[in-house]
């Protein structure tokens, strides 16, 4: 089967509009994200002391990234000692080239894959197909969208945008017989079909949730069992790993294992958590005979040394930010137009490339509400990073010319209160044309967006600063004595803060 990318047309706004008009998609995304989000909140509360765990997770990741050269080096050396062939890839092309070399050397005809965002990022499947090696997704959701020739729309639940009827149709075609739209039947079909594929495949491909530096092991989290399958049955294993997906020790894994499943789906632990340390031992009865790990950069190292984006590398790909984001909830994953969607995607996609000129407006698809930051188990300030992205675009001169003019105007008006006043007076005059009943309903120009969904308020007849004089003299006349308790507290506050200095 071929695996073309879903074509990404137009701007983020256009794609978002498509998503907003797709009722099923919106309902499905909403239902799923709510389920996952409430699952997470419940699990976090039940576990207790969530903030402390978050902080610990953050510290472990910060430390590891700050010493990434040491830990990656340790990892590679230890992995080699276990018999793993370790490879380093600067770019997606490098990673593909290494993978294809291995596949060709094995004369591989089929590869079975467990879920890996990195392999999506580098478009591995297409590359394998090009050398006549069938690349089969084995995660149920991924298998479904592979049949549909689409890309995943959510990091954890890739086929969230498909309903059971669509899925039944896809699988029926695959099966060559009509399957009912019943979950257990559909899943049963996939289990049977993929069993054969697992047992016949030449290569097993995995991603890597966490690499353990001190033992050269990789750890995989999953619920279906397919990651265990692809790392146990085929004779050759290739593991793809983002260079930042690493922690120092197994003790640290306890923290990650506490944060990740709860943040992703609200589970205490995923059904399977597998630590794989090298290929099979000679005396073992199963396990791959040959194991490769390809460590990928592809723009990750660009974040190092950048104080605004280095924390981006803390990400453990749990998807909690997607589930918390109100924008994602309304537009779904494909509207983001990249391998990664949601808040993390909005930052990663541009940050990995740093090609400011080509950045689309994805960083603008956010109200900066901060829900992502609140949800993130390792406390990545995604909302701040979005502003940084916007600023870099402006500073590089790639902002929209109209916006630039508007903002320059803002700067001029706001830097001087007299100009500000004049502008407001003009606004009050100008609005007379469009105010009706104290509200503005016209949908022209910049008002179009606002007034398609609301009635805009008019500028009040008298600005606060105009009223102030009157109000002030009225209150001065009342001359109420300062409430002693209140005054005491204010003094206390000042003392605590400045050591008593005041502007009396």
């Amino acid at each position, binding site marked *: 089967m071929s695996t073309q990318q879903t074509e990404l047309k137009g701007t983020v706004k256009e794609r978002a509009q498509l998503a907003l008009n797709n009722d099923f998609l919106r309902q499905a995304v909403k239902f799923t994200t709510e389920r996952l989000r409430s699952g997470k909140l419940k699990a976090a509360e039940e576990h207790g002391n969530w903030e402390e765990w978050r902080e610990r997770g953050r510290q472990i990741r910060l430390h590891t990234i700050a010493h990434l050269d040491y830990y*990656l*080096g340790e990892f590679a050396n230890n992995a080699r000692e276990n018999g793993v062939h370790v490879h380093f890839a600067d770019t997606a092309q490098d990673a593909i080239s290494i993978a294809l070399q291995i596949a060709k050397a094995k004369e591989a005809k089929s590869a079975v894959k467990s879920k890996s965002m990195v392999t999506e990022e580098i478009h591995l499947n297409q590359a394998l197909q090009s050398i006549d090696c069938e690349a089969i997704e084995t995660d149920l959701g991924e298998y479904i969208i592979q049949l549909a020739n689409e890309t995943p729309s959510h990091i954890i639940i890739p086929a969230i945008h498909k309903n059971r009827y669509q*899925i039944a149709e896809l699988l029926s075609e695959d099966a060559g017989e009509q399957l009912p739209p019943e979950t257990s039947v559909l899943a049963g079909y996939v289990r049977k079909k993929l069993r054969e594929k697992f047992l016949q495949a030449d290569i097993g491909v995995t991603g890597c949730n966490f690499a353990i530096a001190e033992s050269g092991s990789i750890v995989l989290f999953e619920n279906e*069992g397919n990651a265990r399958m692809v790392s146990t049955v085929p004779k050759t294993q290739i593991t793809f790993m983002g260079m930042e997906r690493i922690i120092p020790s197994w003790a640290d894994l306890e923290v990650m294992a506490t944060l990740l499943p709860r943040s992703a789906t609200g589970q205490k*632990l995923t059904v399977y958590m597998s630590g794989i340390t090298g290929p099979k031992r000679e005396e073992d009865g199963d*396990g791959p005979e040959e194991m490769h790990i390809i460590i990928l950069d592809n723009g990750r190292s660009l974040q190092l040394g950048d104080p605004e984006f280095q924390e981006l590398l803390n990400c453990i790909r749990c998807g909690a930010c997607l589930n918390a984001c109100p924008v994602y909830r309304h537009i779904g994953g494909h509207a983001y137009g990249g391998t990664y969607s949601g808040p993390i995607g909005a930052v990663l996609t541009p940050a990995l490339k740093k090609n400011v000129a080509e950045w689309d407006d994805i960083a603008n698809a956010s109200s900066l509400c901060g829900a992502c930051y609140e949800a993130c188990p390792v406390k990545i300030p995604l909302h701040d990073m979005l502003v940084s992205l916007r600023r870099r675009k402006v500073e590089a001169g790639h902002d929209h010319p109209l916006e630039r003019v508007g903002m320059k105007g803002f700067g001029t008006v706001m830097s001087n209160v007299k100009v500000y006043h004049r502008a407001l007076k003009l606004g009050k005059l100008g609005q007379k044309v469009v105010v009706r009943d104290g509200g503005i309903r016209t949908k022209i120009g910049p008002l179009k967006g606002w007034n398609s969904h609301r009635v805009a308020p008019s500028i009040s007849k008298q600005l606060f600063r105009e009223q102030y004089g009157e109000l002030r003299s009225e209150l001065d006349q009342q001359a109420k004595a300062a409430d002693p308790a209140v005054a005491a507290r204010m003094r206390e506050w000042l003392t605590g803060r400045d050591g008593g200095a005041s502007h009396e």
Partner: protein
Amino acid sequence: MSNARKDWLQQLDEASKQKQEQFLNGIAAKLQRPRMTQKPQRPLQGAPQFWEQFELGEVEKLEMFQRNFEAAGGYVLRAATLADASNIIVDKAVELKAMHVLRQDEQLLEQLGLEQAMPQVKVRSWNDDALEDWKARAAEADIGVVLADYAIAYTGSLALLSSKTKGRSVSLLPTLLFALVPRSSVVTRLGEVLQPLDELKRLPAGIHFVSGPSRSADIENDLTIGVHGPGIVYTIIIDEL
């Protein structure tokens, strides 16, 4: 493996070692400091302090394990002795008309006497014959029987370490899994199993934590059990062990 292949892999490894230096130097350069070659100091490692002191009593541990494992769709049974456990397994096998059973090649599992108890069923022992295709045997097995290394109460998990006699496939490929757990191997926290791994010189190739039957909610959020791994998982906690 052919010599040509060995040579090719060796070449790759040599090239990769050089690339590694480049890669790591690049990282250090971006972090604006020289390469770090000594293990860095770590004031904060592993779980928060208060967590490391969390420990449940015997009875609570078992109760918590059962609660969590069952909440995930697994089954938990208690057996006073190994013989009792054997009866449980045999009864189930007969009930389900199982034809193939595969157990790990461990002494305690041999003592179950499954071969004798159900002669009509093909009971095999993992990797006891170098010429057998064990993955195929595991794939055709209806029931897999393993002896867990640990059970963890807080997460409702079994810890299974691989070895010559303990195949990873035995807990993965059969339709139904029986995991025997010595009562003395039940611990409270995941960290109790993970921390010692940092001390081990050489780890097994596969360390698997299993917390229930295989599942997925990928189709319209509708939960389905038994996708790729075993759909029915029984833990039998054995009191005398």
